[in-house]
């Protein structure tokens, strides 16, 4: 009986590759023009292939090559991928090179994913949250081949992944230690990398791509687009939750609502005397909107999932704050940062598209299979956690007061959303669109981003509903209706019950928090446009072209 099949198979692939590339294979590196030959040799039909579609960086050269392979030679691949961001991520299914997919997020391609799935060309294993997907790479979904992107490599294949390290370490480790093949596209091949992020011993093939790998500036938000309503909600978040629980360690979900909070720290939070009392430690990408808060001394540390285009020089000038290596440049790590966001943060706050009467929250809509990225992980109580903090203990007490259970803490999970979205679509619904999507896409369960029993607070322009303090399903439902404003869900409230919940502090309006709505103007933002952010950074922040008019 052979116990060595993986290694034997690996050797066979490497041999085929060497033969195919001949003397154009120089150590580990091959010319870009020969990439198709390498992939045809190294990949076998039915393989699990992990491609770096990350949230930000894309191994676009490799992804394009994969999508254009000959489906008669290579087909039925099982794609493992964090994010489906580029058209070629779906072309690979359209052309019959791949047939199966396990992933986390597909925002830009969500409609096409749904179409291909219903056409039978794309068989979805499951949607995952990032950390969950990486975990399965070590258990039942080890990649046979991984296609990743790095800044640079040396002749030994040592890789520098730098600020945009993102998912690479988890992917490469899982692949290399199951005898898989690791193929990397790099921006340059150098004599000496600034820092070894991934050791060459784990790397098989390196190709310098014709263009640097693509990075999406996903986390940049132009302050000019923040509305007065968002300023009001940010004020309520800061006074009603951050100050109330003393939130020092947190993660912000992506969006303008949280960008408004970031920009209110040096102004509104400062005026409340909160510097040093909230917002010290962040699991967060380097949001440009956080610059004023960093400069004002609110922020002590930021650990990131990835970097953000344009922030390089600013990060470099703030080594006390960011995760800077001995070489002076940043490293990000999505797996570790997701773990940090889960266990080492006391609060997650983010936005959503829909919330139902139990507080289940989802961005799933019919006709689009998008997944949730990291939100499901961040927005979940960390039941394995054992260390205490004031915020965690206070939330746990509120949830368990009057109940006969052993005391423990709880993570604050806040959903911040306006009651109506664009085109007067209500954010509060009796039944999530996720149910419809479940039927359409034949999923086992409706795709929910954050489960109601993890949500601790819902914050709208109408106020804050504290679900920790609700003791029955009915109270919970009315608390939600009580902040759902003029949506049909809100209008159907039991007015008496909602008044009672307000008296008990379960619902708090802006007035109850002592917030003067007349202060909720854009003047309260520490930066009101991209230029203000650049000025706040002392000229170090260089916004990407699409955000600049200079």
């Amino acid at each position, binding site marked *: 009986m052979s116990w060595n099949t993986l290694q034997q198979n690996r050797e066979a692939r490497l041999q085929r590759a060497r033969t195919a590339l001949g003397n154009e294979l120089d150590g580990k590196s091959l010319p870009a023009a020969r990439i198709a030959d390498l992939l045809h040799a190294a990949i076998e039909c039915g393989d699990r292939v992990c491609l770096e579609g990350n949230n930000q960086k894309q191994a676009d050269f490799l992804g394009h090559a994969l999508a254009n392979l000959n489906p008669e030679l290579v087909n039925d691949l099982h794609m493992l991928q964090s994010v489906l961001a580029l058209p070629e991520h779906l072309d690979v299914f359209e052309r019959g090179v791949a047939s199966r997919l396990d992933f986390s997020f597909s925002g830009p391609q969500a409609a096409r994913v749904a179409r291909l799935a219903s056409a039978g060309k794309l068989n979805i294993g499951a949607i995952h949250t990032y950390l969950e997907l990486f975990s399965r790479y070590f258990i039942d979904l080890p990649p046979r081949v991984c296609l990743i992107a790095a800044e640079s490599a040396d002749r030994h294949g040592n890789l520098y992944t730098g600020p945009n390290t993102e998912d690479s370490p988890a992917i490469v480790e899982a692949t290399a230690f199951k005898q898989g093949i690791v193929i990397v596209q790099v921006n340059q091949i150098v004599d000496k990398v600034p820092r070894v992020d991934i050791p060459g011993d784990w790397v098989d093939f390196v190709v310098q791509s014709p263009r640097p790998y693509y990075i999406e500036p996903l986390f940049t938000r132009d302050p000019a687009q923040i*509305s*007065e*309503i968002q300023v*009001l909600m940010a004020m309520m978040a800061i006074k009603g939750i951050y100050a109330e629980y003393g939130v020092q360690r947190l993660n912000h979900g992506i969006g303008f609502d949280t960008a408004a909070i970031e920009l209110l720290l040096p102004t509104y939070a400062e005026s409340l005397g909160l510097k040093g009392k909230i917002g010290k430690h962040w699991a967060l990408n380097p949001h440009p909107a956080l610059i004023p808060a960093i400069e004002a001394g609110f922020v002590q540390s930021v650990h990131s999932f990835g970097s953000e285009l344009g922030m390089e020089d600013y990060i470099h000038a703030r080594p006390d704050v960011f995760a800077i290596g001995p070489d002076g440049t940043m490293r990000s790590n999505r797996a570790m940062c997701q773990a940090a966001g889960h266990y080492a943060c006391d609060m997650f706050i983010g936005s959503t598209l829909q919330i139902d009467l139990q507080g289940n929250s989802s961005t799933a809509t019919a006709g689009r299979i998008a997944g949730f990225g990291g939100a499901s992980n961040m927005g979940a109580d960390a039941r394995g956690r054992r260390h205490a903090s004031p915020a965690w203990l206070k939330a746990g007490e509120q949830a368990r007061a009057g109940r006969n259970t052993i005391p423990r803490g709880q993570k604050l999970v806040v959903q911040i959303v*306006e*009651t*109506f979205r*664009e*085109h*007067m679509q209500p954010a509060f619904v009796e039944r999530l669109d996720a149910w419809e999507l479940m039927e359409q896409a034949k999923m086992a369960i409706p795709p929910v981003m954050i489960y109601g029993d993890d949500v601790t607070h819902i914050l709208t*322009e*109408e106020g804050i509903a504290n679900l920790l303090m609700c003791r029955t399903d009915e109270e919970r439902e009315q608390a939600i209706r009580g902040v759902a*404003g*003029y949506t049909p869900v809100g*209008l159907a409230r039991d007015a008496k019950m909602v008044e009672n919940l307000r008296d008990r502090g379960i619902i708090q309006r802006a007035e109850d928090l002592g917030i003067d*709505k*007349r202060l*909720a103007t854009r003047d309260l933002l520490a930066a009101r446009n991209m230029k203000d952010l650049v000025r706040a950074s002392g000229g170090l922040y260089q916004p990407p072209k699409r955000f600049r008019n200079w």
Partner: protein
Amino acid sequence: METLNYRFEQGTRRLTAPPEVVGVVGSGNLEVLIEPAQLDGACTIEITTAAVGFGPIWEAVMRDFHQRWLLADTRISINDMGATPAVVSLRMDQAVQTMLGDA
């Protein structure tokens, strides 16, 4: 475009300042014109809106507005271009506060 009209009685607060306008008729926004008027104590609100079919929501918003301020002999005219109830309430409150001289 849709035009909606509301009339509320039992108001107690009369405004004495000259007419004011607040807001801009841009996408997702509205302008609110507020004027003292001889209306036998009533507060009337006329809304011309580009977002058609939201009558019940407008009514609920206007009722709550009247409950908050109980204006009398006041005429309010609105040109709306798809503002959400949040923005509508905000602008209307801003309009009253401007009239009261404490905006």
